[in-house]
């Protein structure tokens, strides 16, 4: 009987100091994967959807293959604009956090296409259940940055009334659900929302996003099981950005199989897509949405991308991965790739691009000015302190009224 430990421990390909090594990420040519009829039955879907990768944009920026969604230039420029807006918004808010203007922030750099393209491929009436790293959904749906900034500032116009940490947005009118600090809880909720739509005979569908690390939570299984049993009209997205804080995707169970492979076992199609390829994300989302809307049930989409920046403003990735790893991600940058595509076909230019960046930057700055005029952590206008006790219940019960009075009494006391 051996006495040598033989527990397998997943180890990332490169630690700080070592050279980045993405040999575990297979190189797939754009257009390599065929596009099945969205009405196809699960058993007729080819394995390549899971084990290869849906890609449309090649390295030269040419769109190739059956998955090319054939979007017109305006749509593409619209997508580019919203990815840029997302990125510059992220950069700005990170600076503001460093300056102590907000308590915390989480960027989505490198993952903008995952959110923006998906939002564009869905109907405005479809309900979105986001994670904390798909702010592009809000921006692509036309949410003003001021609203988002107000939330991060917990100021007088914060849609959460100061009750959530920064980036935990929601948007009722825009059909975007509330972001929870507890991972994966939105997954079965999205399935339930979709079940209700089906029960009511409505055509709207739901879509939810989690990270690959979050797929280990129980709610992933709950969502997959319920989506499968009731054929719920829902799109379940796993954003595989290779990291969950410090642990690489192998620790979440991605070492042996792509996360998309979890689908078929439940009777749910899985698709693996290049998450940095705007056209591919759009096309795959559109395909899954058509299935859901036409009664073919759920689709599990793995979006392969890379978390370029820190997990959050509290994190320092240089502690656990090579500093230069981001540059060596084989599938490039979503903004650059869409830009190259547009430019190549004369629908965009460096000057236009520079102009757009300048314009968006101006917009971000001016919206920030607006936002702080609604208050900051340190300067008013502040939320009404009474809000602390509102919305625990639909109507405030006696003990909360009493506690609110106690709180106000203390303030009085302090004054004198």
């Amino acid at each position, binding site marked *: 009987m051996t006495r040598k430990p033989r527990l397998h421990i997943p180890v990332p390909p490169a630690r700080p100091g070592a050279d980045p090594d993405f040999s575990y990420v297979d190189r797939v040519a754009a257009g390599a994967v065929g596009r099945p009829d969205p009405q196809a039955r699960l058993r007729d879907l080819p394995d390549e959807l899971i084990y290869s990768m849906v890609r449309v944009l090649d390295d030269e920026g040419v769109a190739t293959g059956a998955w090319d969604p054939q979007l017109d230039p305006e749509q593409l420029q619209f997508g580019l604009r919203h990815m840029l807006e997302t990125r510059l918004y992220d950069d700005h808010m990170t600076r503001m956090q460093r300056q102590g203007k907000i308590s915390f922030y989480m960027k989505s750099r490198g993952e903008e296409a995952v959110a923006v393209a998906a939002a564009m491929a869905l109907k405005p009436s479809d309900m979105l259940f986001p994670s904390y790293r798909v702010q592009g959904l809000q921006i692509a749906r036309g949410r003003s940055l001021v609203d988002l900034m107000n939330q991060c500032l917990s100021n007088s116009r914060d849609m959460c*009334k100061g009750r*959530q940490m920064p980036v935990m947005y929601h948007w*009722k009118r825009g059909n975007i659900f509330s972001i929870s600090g507890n991972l994966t809880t939105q997954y079965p909720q999205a399935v339930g929302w979709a079940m209700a*739509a089906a029960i*009511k005979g409505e055509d709207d569908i739901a879509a939810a996003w989690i990270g690959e690390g979050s797929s280990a939570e129980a709610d992933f299984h709950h969502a997959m099981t319920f989506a499968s049993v009731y054929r719920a009209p829902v799109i379940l997205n796993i954003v595989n950005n290779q990291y969950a804080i410090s642990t690489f995707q192998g620790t979440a169970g991605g070492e042996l199989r792509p996360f998309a492979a979890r689908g078929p076992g439940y009777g749910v199609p899985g698709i693996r897509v290049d998450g940095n390829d705007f056209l591919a994300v759009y096309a795959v989302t559109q395909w899954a949405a058509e299935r859901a809307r036409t009664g073919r049930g759920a689709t599990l989409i793995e979006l392969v991308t890379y978390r370029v920046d820190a997990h959050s403003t509290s994190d320092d990735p240089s502690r656990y991965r090579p500093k230069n790893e981001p540059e060596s991600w084989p599938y490039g940058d979503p903004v650059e790739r869409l830009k190259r595509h547009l430019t190549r076909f004369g629908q965009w230019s460096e000057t236009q691009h520079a102009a757009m960046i300048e314009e968006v930057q101006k917009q971000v700055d001016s919206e920030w000015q607006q936002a702080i005029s609604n208050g900051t952590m340190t300067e008013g206008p502040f939320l009404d302190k009474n809000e602390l006790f509102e919305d625990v219940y639909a109507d405030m019960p006696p*003990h909360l009224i009493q506690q609110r009075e106690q709180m106000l009494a203390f303030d009085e006391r302090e004054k004198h």
Partner: protein
Amino acid sequence: MPRMNMVQAINSAMDIMLARDPNVVLIGQDIGYFGGVFRCTDGLQRKYGEHRVIDAPIAEGGIVGSSIGMGVNGLRPVAEIQFADYIYPGCDQIISELARLRYRTAGDFFAPVTIRTPCGGGIRGGQTHSQSPEGIFTHLCGVKVVMPSNPYDAKGLLISSIEDDDPIIFFEPKRIYNGPFDGDPDKPAVPWSTHPKGEVPGDYYTIPIGRAEIVRPGEDVTVLCYGTMVHVCLAAAAHTQIDAEIIDLRTLSPLDVPAIVQSVEKTGRCVVVHEATRFSGYGAELAATVQEECFYSLEAPILRVTGWDTPYPHAFEWDYFPGKRRVAAALEQILEMS
């Protein structure tokens, strides 16, 4: 007036709400075609269809999570957790999501979910069919906790719960589904049909959430109880001939403090009774509140009669169950004190 046992009253409440509100749906394990392991949903799927009375996979977390989503999309889900002992896989969705959704979205989103679940012991169910976990949920902000003690209240409170826009954990003391139980297992079972609270109107009515009821007026000591223990306490009072004022809390959270204070200020004594284990249980809140509110009226310490601080056993059930004799002893003890 029709007579119903608690199962029929609960069934009637859901029947009425399914008929009145097209957005009411039921979901749970074995509740559909089969009608539930305790028959509480008997006949409802046949009557309202498989889209409104839904058999669920065995995943309490999925049942609660999907119910939240359905609630956000305009439905009023009534979820059944087959036994309260099995609610724990749903804890994260209840505690982190259901209870706090309205607060964290400043009222923009909420899920009017009612979670029904049979609780309590006395059925030889051992540790996984006898638990009284209400104390975990009364500690949450954002959910209301209800536990009826008879068919009439069960129906009225369940209708109120389903209509309530706040999430509600609705505990059903399974030992008294078919008849009141005074804690003596050797006595022949009594059906609800002989009990005044077994008279249940066939149609719609509500009982307000947040209101306790004095089920026995008295002068000498206030007894705070709920669920099965209401009947045990009544038996103990009769047995000891102590003039106890017995209050059936009915809603555990939010608590009807005025009703309690009024009684304790009158009697000057208070005994708190529940089946759940004692340490850090719900009874502690009752004792803490009473001594805060009525300290100067109290002539004796508030006593707690509860399940022992062990898991619920299979053998020795009647040594574990806080029966008539233990409540009686507390009543006698507290009257001797001062």
